[in-house]
């Protein structure tokens, strides 16, 4: 024993077969406590399967999936888990407060603590007067708020949010972002499974991109951007940009605007030096940018697939 604390989530050589179909080939990654982690991939890439296997809902074909160094157990790690599945819902014919108390008790809270917490949460989201109302009598947005409340009961150490903004209205999307931020500040690790790349860029420290059952990219957001397409040069100019195929490709060119993609091992600085010294070209402004995650996503999964994602 080294005494080193185990990662919050540790997935090692995970493989998942359904009959003859292999959904996950060989997947390894880890998530530390307090981290917001983006879990990305196209539809059917195995994100939900991985989470279900991590939570013991599926038994992996091979590999280990651990939370705090141990396989998931509803009796222990289940108490400090906040899980918002993609297929989500609650007991629609029961009063809001009864459903919240039930889930609170299942997570190990006493009935009175669950009730107190639920009432505080409902007051915060302006649903205190609906506590005794049946869930199916609430609007879709109000039901989403209750669902979020149930997810974060008992101060989870690990929040797993599968397509968290799916079907959420803008108000609840804002509430969700506040909750993620709040829980993260309290020390919770967050796994966000999403197609919303701007949210990942804004919130996540690190991410993994799944393709064909394997990690296509894994690391910090910056390192992923670096490894996919690197940097690009945005120019505003007058004159003519000369062709330098050994130095760069012209990705986009309009009358006074161009986007240049440096060739491998060619620095943007070298290209700029070359262009500054070119006759008949005057550079008005320049900017060196990394590609957005959205662009990386499209480049990995292809335009059609990304559209469906």
């Amino acid at each position, binding site marked *: 024993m080294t005494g080193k604390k185990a990662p919050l989530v540790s997935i090692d050589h995970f493989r998942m077969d359904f009959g003859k179909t292999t959904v996950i080939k060989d997947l390894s990654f880890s998530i530390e406590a307090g981290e917001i982690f983006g879990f990305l991939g196209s539809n059917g890439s195995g994100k939900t399967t991985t989470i*279900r296997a991590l*939570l013991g*809902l599926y*038994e992996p*074909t091979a590999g280990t999936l651990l939370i705090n160094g141990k396989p998931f157990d*509803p009796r222990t790690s289940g108490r400090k888990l906040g899980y918002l599945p993609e297929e989500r*819902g609650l*007991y629609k014919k029961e009063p809001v407060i009864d459903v919240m108390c039930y889930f609170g*008790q*299942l997570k190990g809270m006493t009935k009175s603590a669950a009730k107190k917490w639920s009432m505080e949460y409902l007051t915060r989201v302006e649903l205190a007067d609906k506590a005794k109302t049946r869930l199916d009598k609430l609007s879709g947005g109000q039901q989403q708020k209750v669902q979020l409340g149930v997810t974060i009961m008992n101060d989870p150490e690990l929040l797993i949010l599968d397509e968290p903004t799916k079907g959420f209205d803008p108000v609840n999307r804002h509430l969700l972002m506040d909750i993620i931020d709040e829980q993260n500040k309290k020390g919770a690790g967050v796994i966000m499974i999403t197609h919303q790349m701007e949210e990942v860029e804004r919130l996540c420290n690190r991410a993994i991109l799944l393709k064909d059952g394997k990690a296509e990219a894994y690391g910090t957001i910056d390192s992923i951007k670096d490894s996919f397409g690197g940097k690009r040069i945005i120019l505003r100019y007058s004159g003519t940009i000369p062709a330098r195929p050994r130095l760069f490709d012209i990705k986009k060119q309009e009358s006074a605007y161009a986007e240049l993609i440096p060739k491998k091992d060619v620095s943007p600085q070298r290209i700029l030096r070359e262009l500054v010294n070119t006759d008949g070209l005057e550079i008005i402004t320049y900017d060196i940018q990394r590609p957005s995650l959205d662009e990386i996503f499209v480049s990995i999964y292809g335009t059609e697939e990304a559209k469906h994602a």
Partner: protein
Amino acid sequence: MHNLSTVIKFELIRTLKKPSFWISIFAIPVLIGVIGGIVAFAQISGNQTQAELNKKPFSFSVQDETGYIPDQLLIKIGATRITDKQQGIKSVTDGKIDAFFYYPKDVTTKTIEIYNKNDGLLSNDKYSVAAKELLISSATEVIGSKEIVLITKGNIATSQKNFENGKEVNLIGSMIAPAAALVIFYAIIVMLGNQMLASTTEEKENRVTEMLLTSLYSKTLIVGKIIALVLLGFIQMAAILIPVAIGYIFARGMLNIPDISNFTSIIVFDFWPIFIGAGLLISGFLLFTGLLVGIGAAAPTAKDANSFFGVVILMMFIPFYFFQVFMTPSTSPIVLFLSYFPLTSPVTLMIRNIFGTVSISEALIGLAIVSVCGVVAINLAVRIFRYGTLEYSKRLSLKTVFKSKKAKNLKNNQKI
């Protein structure tokens, strides 16, 4: 089991809070009570009216070809004897007398003819009653012994004692306890069957399974639901029986409830019949519960699941078509098949247990089969629930349950 009591409490309380639960319990007894009350009221009113009408004296004449009716009896009741049938009928049609009875020579082959004025549907009966009573009283006087008349009527009681191996056997008394097991079994399955079937479809339809299964094991949820269902069944029975018991204790006479104190004293409590009955009741309950919960978990909606309920109930009723065969000891292939086929075994063996036509070894084999199948059915239901409910709107294929790796390894993950 982790969180079991929380599941039971939640399932129990939310059902008890539903008005539909109480309506379903009391609707039929209340309806029966209301209809019974109306019928009783109508009967009492009718009886009173008839009694009043019957008290009213009427005048009549008699023509007696039998020769049994004595003059002194006719004088005593104020009737007159005549010898002309047509005259008697005319006296009635003219309104001189209320009725005329004509007794043919042989009343066993010919009918007594009664001619009377119309007093209405209820009152007209009094004339035929009077005509019969007059002849019976006359015949009794001819015989000279009321006792002999009763004997010839078959108004006699017997008492019987049966012996086996030198000991008295109380056949009816020994049938009561095993029969109770069969009645309870039917009552539970019929009353709770639909709820068992729908017990997991709510989780499936509401997409709540995944969140639940991160807080408890699927077996805990299923067992919790079954226990809650059984408790609800007891509450249902108590809700119906307690008012009956109160009525029996405090208002038995008024409500015309029969005295059952003698009945309870004749019940025989023999070990083997009770053990077999109780064992089959429990194992049969497990088997049918597992079957119904499994069907519910595999079907996409409650409506889909309901279509299978009739099939399960049919399996419970098939043995009744062979009721007479079970009344005598038999080793015919059909009896053996019904006794050992898991879905017909509980009811078949329970019926044979009532009549004492099943041997202990046969019963134990059947009990073992049903128990094993019951445990398998419950575990299968848990497995189907676990994977069926994650399939949400799809119907679960058996291949998914039996062949996939996830199902194969389920056992390892089901620590309670």
